[in-house]
C-alpha cells in the first residue's frame, strides 16, 4: 500500500454512514457505512445488483437516500443535487457510457470544465474578453488532460464514432477535467483487453500519484482491484459484508461465497 502523498491535506475525507436506499419493494442499500481516506484508492466490490452503482448515485446526488448521511468537505451530500455535489469537487464516470455522442471529444471534455468556468449567457453571447480568456486557458488544460489520458489524437472526432474502450477513456478524461478532489470510477476497465486494462490501471494510479486525490472505484476485475486499491469494501444485497485491505478481504470466506466464487483463477 502506498502511503498517502504529502499534499493529501487538501483532499477531504468521504464518509458514508448508514445509508439506506429503497426502491419500490427493494432495499438497494441497507445501512451501508464506509469512509474513503484522503488520497487513497478505495474499491467497492460485490455481486451484480449489490448496490455499488446505487452507492455512487447517492454520493453524486443522482439518487436520494431514504436515511443515512454522506459527508464530504464539511457538506452533507444526501440533500445536495448533482451539480452541487460537482461543485464540491466530486467527479464520476458512468457504468453505461454517458457522453454526447454527436459532439467531438473536445466539447465533451470542455463540459467537464463547467464547474470551473464562469461565463454565462451574457458574457458568452457578447464574447466578453473574460469569456475568451477563460476558454483559451481551459482549452489548453483540456488538451493537457487529453494527452495524459491518451485521447489527444481524437479530440476532434465525434465520440459516437469511437470504439467502446476509447469512449471509456474519454469518460475518465471528462471526469478529470472537473479537477476533482474525489473521483468515482464505475467499472473503468469493462470492455478492455488485458493490455488496455493494465494501461488503464497505470493511468488511474498516476492520476492519484500526480494529483493526490481520493478515488472510489467499482470494478469486477479482481486482479486490478487487488493491485491498485488501498482499501476494499464489499457489498452484497445492499449490505456491507466485509471491508479492509485487499488481501484480507480476498480471503474472507463470506466474500468468496458471495462474490469471488470458489475458483478465482477461472473467473478472473
Amino acid at each position, binding site marked *: 500500500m502506498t502511503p498517502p502523498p504529502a499534499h493529501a491535506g487538501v483532499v477531504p475525507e468521504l464518509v458514508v454512514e448508514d445509508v439506506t436506499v429503497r426502491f419500490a419493494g427493494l432495499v438497494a442499500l441497507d445501512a451501508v457505512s464506509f469512509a474513503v481516506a484522503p488520497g487513497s484508492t478505495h474499491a467497492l466490490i460485490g455481486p451484480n445488483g449489490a448496490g455499488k452503482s446505487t452507492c455512487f448515485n447517492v454520493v453524486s446526488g443522482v439518487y436520494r437516500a431514504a436515511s443515512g448521511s454522506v459527508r464530504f468537505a464539511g457538506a452533507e451530500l444526501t440533500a445536495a443535487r*448533482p451539480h452541487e455535489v460537482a461543485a464540491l469537487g466530486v467527479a464520476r464516470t458512468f457504468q453505461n457510457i454517458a457522453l454526447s455522442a*454527436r459532439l467531438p471529444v473536445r466539447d465533451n471534455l*470542455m463540459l467537464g470544465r*463547467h464547474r470551473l468556468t464562469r*461565463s454565462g*449567457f451574457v458574457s458568452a453571447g457578447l464574447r466578453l474578453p473574460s469569456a475568451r480568456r477563460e476558454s483559451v486557458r481551459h482549452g489548453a488544460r483540456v488538451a493537457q488532460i487529453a494527452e495524459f489520458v491518451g485521447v489527444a489524437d481524437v479530440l476532434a472526432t465525434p465520440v459516437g464514432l469511437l470504439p467502446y474502450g476509447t469512449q471509456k477513456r474519454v469518460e475518465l478524461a471528462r471526469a478529470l477535467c472537473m479537477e476533482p478532489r474525489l473521483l468515482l470510477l464505475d467499472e473503468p476497465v469493462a470492455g478492455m483487453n488485458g493490455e488496455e486494462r493494465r494501461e488503464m490501471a497505470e493511468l488511474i494510479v498516476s492520476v492519484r500519484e500526480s494529483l493526490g486525490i481520493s478515488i472510489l472505484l467499482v470494478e469486477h476485475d479482481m486482479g486490478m482491484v487487488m493491485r491498485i486499491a488501498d482499501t476494499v469494501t464489499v457489498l452484497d444485497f445492499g449490505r456491507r459484508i466485509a471491508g479492509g485491505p485487499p488481501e484480507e478481504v480476498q480471503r474472507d470466506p463470506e466474500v468468496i461465497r458471495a462474490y469471488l466464487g470458489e475458483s478465482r483463477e477461472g473467473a478472473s
Partner: protein
Amino acid sequence: MSRRTRWIASAAVWGAVTAGAVAAPFYLEGFWLQTGLFAMSAAVGAIGINLLTGATGQLSLGHAFFLAVGAYAYVYLSSDVGLPTPLAAVLAVAASGVAGGLFSPIAGRLKGAYLGIATLALIFGGQHVLFNAETVTGGYNGRAVPPMELFGFVFADSPEVVVFDVPFGSLERLWFLGLVVLGCAALFARGVLRGRPGLAMNAIRDHEIAAGVMGVPVARYRAGVFVVSSMYGGLAGVLVALVFQRVVPDYFGILLSLDYLAMIVIGGLGSVAGAVIGAAFVSLLPQLLTRYGDALPLVAAPGSGGVSPAEAARILYGAAVVTVVLFLPGGLLGLASRLRRAIPRIKELRWANSAPEPASRR
C-alpha cells in the same frame, strides 16, 4: 491553406453579403422589402427556438406566444404608457423573458413531446387573453403599432426622406433596423452556442443526468434557455409588429409555431446559420409562389378551380419539410457544407473550419 487566406476569403464573402443587404432597399420594391423583413423577424425567432429545440432538445410549440408578448408589450408600453419607443422595445423583449420565466416550473421540469404539447397551452391561453383583454390588446382586431423612433429618426413613411433619388418609406428604413437586429441576435446566439452555455445545453439534450453530475444545474439551465429563447421570440415579435404596423391575435397561433419548427429543421438543427437559412426559406417560398404562381405550370389562377397558388405554396412547403428532413440530414445548411466540401475551390471559403459530419453545434 493558411489562416490568413481563409480569413481574407471569409471577410470577402461577408463583405459581399453585407453590401448586397445594404443595397437591397435601393432596388427592391416594397413587397420584397416587406417579405425580407418578415424573413428577418422570422430568423430572429428561429434562432431563439433553435437554442431551445436544436441545442437543448426541448420541443416548443408555444413560441408564437412569446412573439405576441413582445409585439403587444411594445404597443402597450409605447402607446399606452407613453415610453419612448426604443425603451418600449427593450422592455417588450424583457417582458417576453419574464413570460418565459413564469413558465419555468413547466419548462424546467418537462421535456420532449410533453413539453412541446404543454407549450400549446401558451398559445391557446395566450390567444384567449389577447382576445379578451381588449383594453390592452384591442381584442380581435388588434392594435396599431406606433413606429419606432431612434434619436429623432422615425421608421415610418412620413416625414419623407429621399436617399439617392429613392424615396425611403417605412420599409426601406426598417430594412436597416432589421439587418442590425438580426446581425446582433445571430452573433449573440453564436457566442452562446460556442461558449460554455452552449456546451451545457448540448449536454442536457444528450444526457440529462450526466450533465447534472458534470456540474450543470439542469433545471435552472432549462428554464434559462427557455427565457433566452422567449426573449428572442419577443424581439422577433417587436420586429414583426413594426413591419406589420398592426398586431392582431390571430397571427400568433399554432401555425406560426409550427412554421418556426419547420424553419429550424429545414435550415439545420442547433445552429444559428441553419435557423437563418430556414427562416428565409419558409418565409420566402409562399410569397414567391403567390407572386409568380401564374407563371408556374399546373398552378391555376385563384378562383378558377385547380390548384391555386396558395395551395401550391402549401403543398411545396409541406413537400420541402418532408424532403429536407428525409434526404438532407443537417438541413439546407448541411447541404451547403456538403457542397462546399464537394467543390474544392469553394472549400477554401469555409468559415466553419472544424466540426465534421454531425454539425450539431456551430
